[in-house]
């Protein structure tokens, strides 16, 4: 039994460890480690295509996660006040945003946006006073919207679970003590749901930062880091990709550890409140 579980951990971590190890390899060869070196990191960070893709990824991840955290939390709070069919319908739509494969979300967004652009761009061109009318197209906006859709549903789910575990008595006590609804929200509800909102934000950020398939369809010319990595892999495995991969792993690891810490705190705190 012990041997088996050790084998599982080895299976899970050995490939990752190998990539990390060889990212520090001085040589090009993937099957022998010659000497320790950070030369591939320097190469990777000096590559402007890569740094542009990284910047794009950070912009997209930050924007979509922020929007998702705000609107997802609002939706979770609003859904608490809903009942009956409206709530079932909204629950279903949120679940659909999570369950529908990313590849379909990407395609559907692409198909719909291209139609919208084909309709709107001539209209803008018609009423635009200057020579060069702005052209709507795929890019940051479309990736942020598509990533935010899934993330918002995720945040709403996490925050909803937290609100459900909150206990109505403390909210009612606050109202009995003549606090306005806003004061109750600000002083009672918000501090308690904040860790789960932050955790949702970080998960959304991680998802967006790691997503390849949705962005692949709707990115237009705004290449994100996973798209860049994917393209590089297809050109051939190089130690530079190992260095990039290691940096991506470390970044998502840090984010996920913070998110877990925030979620953990909620579990330990809740009994103390009662």
């Amino acid at each position: 039994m012990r041997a088996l579980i050790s084998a599982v951990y080895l299976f899970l971590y050995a490939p990752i460890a190998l990539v990390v190890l060889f990212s520090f390899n001085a040589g090009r060869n993937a099957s022998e480690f010659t000497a320790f070196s950070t030369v591939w990191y320097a190469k990777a960070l000096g590559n402007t295509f890569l740094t542009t893709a990284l910047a794009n990824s950070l912009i997209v991840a930050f924007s979509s996660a922020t929007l998702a955290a705000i609107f997802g939390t609002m939706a979770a709070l609003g859904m608490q006040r809903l009942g009956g069919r409206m709530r079932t319908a909204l629950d279903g739509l949120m679940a659909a945003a999570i369950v529908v494969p990313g590849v379909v979300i990407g395609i559907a967004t692409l198909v719909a946006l291209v139609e919208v652009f084909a309709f709107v761009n001539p209209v803008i061109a018609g009423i635009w006073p200057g020579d060069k009318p702005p052209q709507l197209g795929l890019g940051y906006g479309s990736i942020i919207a598509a990533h935010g859709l899934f993330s918002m549903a995720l945040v709403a789910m996490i925050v909803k679970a937290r609100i459900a575990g909150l206990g109505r008595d403390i909210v009612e006590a606050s109202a009995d003590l003549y606090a306005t609804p806003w004061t109750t929200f600000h002083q009672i509800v918000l501090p308690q749901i904040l860790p789960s909102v932050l955790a949702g934000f970080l998960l959304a950020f991680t998802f967006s930062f790691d997503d390849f398939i949705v962005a692949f369809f709707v990115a237009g010319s705004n290449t994100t880091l996973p798209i860049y990595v994917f393209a590089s892999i297809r050109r051939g495995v190089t130690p530079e990709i190992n260095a990039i991969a290691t940096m991506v792993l470390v970044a998502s690891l840090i984010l996920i550890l913070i998110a877990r810490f925030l979620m953990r705190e909620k579990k330990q705190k809740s009994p103390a409140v009662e």
Partner: protein
Amino acid sequence: MPLTMTAKRNLVTTSLLAPAVLWLFIFLVLPFIAMLVFSFGERAPAGGYQPALTLAQYANLPARAAAFWNTLLLAPAGALLCLLVAYPAAYYLAVKANPRYRLLLVSLIVVPFWTSLLVRTYAWMYILGSRGLPHLLDLIGISDVRLLNTPGAVLLGIVYGYLPLMIMPIYVSLEKLDRRLLEASADLGAKPVSTFLGVTLPLSLPGVMTGVALVTILLLGEYLIPQLLGGGKVFFIGNALVDLFLQSRNWPFGSAIAVTLVVIVVIVLTIAMRIAWKVSGSRQVDLV
């Protein structure tokens, strides 16, 4: 005129929900309707879409039968293989592991799931590629082994990529299991094997169902693993979609395949939920 309490409350609820509802409509419902419309259209001569009302795209689905077969065979096969590895691991974590380290051990299982699937799959390209394992095998005299770009590599990638997602729900249902039931079974003279088969296994079925359903549904839309480890030989529906939309620009046919994929996902989901309800009540799975 001051608003009544109810009106005020409704106004607050509406404004809380408005952005989310708008977002869902503009970027989920409308795009899906657009795709449905596209799937009844025709490919424009230069690629893309031109309006029509035809079922030709759906009639043409058998042209991509290989992608459908690969997906419908390898996704459940991968999920079951995943289950075979995941169950003992979940059992160890929930029943045998030292409680002091349990949380840490469980965390170590989940962490890889939240790191980039692209990078983790790429790691296997590295290992299975000609300069990796086959090279080592060559050194000990076993030559010309081909590992990458085979169905086996895709299955391995699936098990590797989705193992954490399979372990977690099973772990959750095993962890909730009442230890006194196991003791009672032993007291009544049952051997460990019969206790496992008669008590533990049936009570963990909800977790097993959740795991298999989650992994299968995610695999139905998989793109990266078949692309990187199957090398264009083991195509999934996701790969066919990328090909049709981004390479051959046959949007109506692609839309028909995408609609079919969603229908398959819905069918699988419905079956899974039916079984899950039969097996037990609903269970929450904590993936984070």
